[in-house]
């Protein structure tokens, strides 16, 4: 099956757009679940903002370089992003591996990584319009949030969210692919749950950690690129140059994760052929 060049050919991109549209519409039908999720994100927004503002107050206004409103924005953008990058709960591919339905994915003339990525981007677009917006509105009304001062930050933030979604997709795809070898991926999912909670910036800003730990996480793991990166872009942490560095790191990780997904996919398919399905 395909190489990176066939994945990115123009007809493949058109197919991708169609698949993304389908992904968007599919998720748009789950209105109840969307509202329930947005409600939960909002409650967690209140919880975490309260903690972060208490931290900022205790630290005399500035904690690890973040001011109170920046920390509040960190929390609300983070809650909104959870659904956009869909940190948790995607087991569609591994379920299909377990049931054997995955074979029909391989019969389609589209590379599976591309078709799942396209569907995921469609899903993310819907989440951006719904589950990102709803808690953000509540956060804006209830708290003094930091809004970007530099106009360029807005498009950069969108780009950063795109990268974040792709990196998150890559990790989730790889997690799901392990089903080809393990069948039961509960353990892998639990390990991912641990990393996604502790290392993406979900539980606390990465900057609260010691310097060496920050460096290791940012450059040697994809995790901060999924959540902390878009947040740091939108709260304009550091200079414009710092923003660019964050985006560059994210872009690299997006490319690495996609390439890894394609490579592992190929090996998984070979395994499927050997096993006879």
């Amino acid at each position, binding site marked *: 099956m395909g190489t990176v060049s066939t994945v990115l050919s123009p007809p493949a991109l058109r197919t991708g757009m169609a698949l993304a549209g389908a992904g968007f519409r599919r998720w748009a039908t*789950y209105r109840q*679940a969307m509202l329930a999720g947005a409600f939960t994100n909002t409650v967690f927004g*209140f919880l975490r903002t309260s903690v972060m503002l208490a931290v900022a107050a205790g630290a005399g206004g500035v904690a690890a370089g973040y001011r109170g409103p920046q920390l509040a924005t960190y929390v609300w953008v983070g809650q909104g992003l959870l659904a956009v990058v869909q940190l948790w709960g995607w087991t569609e591919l591994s379920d299909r591996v377990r049931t054997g339905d995955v074979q029909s994915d391989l019969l389609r003339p589209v590379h599976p990584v591309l078709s799942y990525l396209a569907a995921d981007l469609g899903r993310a677009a819907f989440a951006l319009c719904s589950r990102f917006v709803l808690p953000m509105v509540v956060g804006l009304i*209830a708290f003094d949030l930091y809004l970007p001062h530099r106009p360029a930050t807005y498009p950069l933030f969108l780009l950063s969210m795109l990268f974040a979604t792709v990196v998150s997709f890559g990790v989730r795809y790889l997690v799901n692919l392990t089903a080809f070898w393990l069948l*039961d991926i509960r353990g892998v999912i639990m390990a991912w749950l641990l990393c996604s909670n502790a290392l993406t910036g979900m539980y606390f800003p990465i900057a609260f*950690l010691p310097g060496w730990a920050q460096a290791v996480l940012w450059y040697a793991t994809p995790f901060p690129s999924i959540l902390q990166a878009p947040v740091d872009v939108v709260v304009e942490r550091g200079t414009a140059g710092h923003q660019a560095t964050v985006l560059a790191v994210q872009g690299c990780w997006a490319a690495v994760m996609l390439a890894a997904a394609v490579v592992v996919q190929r090996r998984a398919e070979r395994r499927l052929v050997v096993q006879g399905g």
Partner: protein
Amino acid sequence: MADRPTTAAAYRALLGAQLRAQTQYRFSFALDTAASALITLLDVVSVLVLFRVTPALAGFSFTDSLLIAGLANAAFQLCDMCVGNIDTMREYIRTGRFDAVLLRPLRVLPQLVFGDFSPRRIGRAAQALVVLVVALSLADVTWTPARTVLVVIAPLSGAVIFGAVFVAGSTTAFWFVESGEFANAFTYGGRDFTIYPVGIYPGWFRAVFAYSLGFAFVAYFPGLALLGRPDPLGTPGFLPWCSPLVAVLAATAAALVWRVGVRHYRSTGS
């Protein structure tokens, strides 16, 4: 009929089956156990991380906060060990597997608890108790007989309060099949809420979570009583001793909601 199995044997058999099913996949099982052990520590670790950048939270020092977090964590993990997997009920309802649960001659709640039990939950609860002991030894507690009783009762009442929220929360799926994460706002949200002194939360939010839902009685009030501190928010001094009462009330309410909910079940699909 001497060899007719007892109900207890039925639950034991369910538990055994679940263990065998899980340990079939050895690597997955080991990874699951290790990762979940670390996740349990995350709440306490995040308290450590936050205190790297601040010396105090709403007037509570690191050791005081750690004690509250330890109590909250112990209560939550005890609850999670017993009824935490009632979470899976909404999956059961969504996929229609709940039918099979209803078709067996066993009660629903214990079936879900034993049928999906994972031994790592025992490990997690034990781990939480160790953390609590460490927090107690670091904190400045003047031990009295009353406080000794409290330190045993508090995690138990807290666990019952959490359990009530879990059970009541899971019933939303009876009414709204796609209710998804709604209940998480109160179960896992409740856990996050209880870790920190309630003084950090804005007024109405605190009123709902701390007093209406009773989460202040899980760790905050018992923590104050153990530390011998008056509530900086000025609540009456007897409240910290009311946790068991609140737990009984919560459990009763949850049982009622559950009964109504099961009657409302509409089995989906064919």
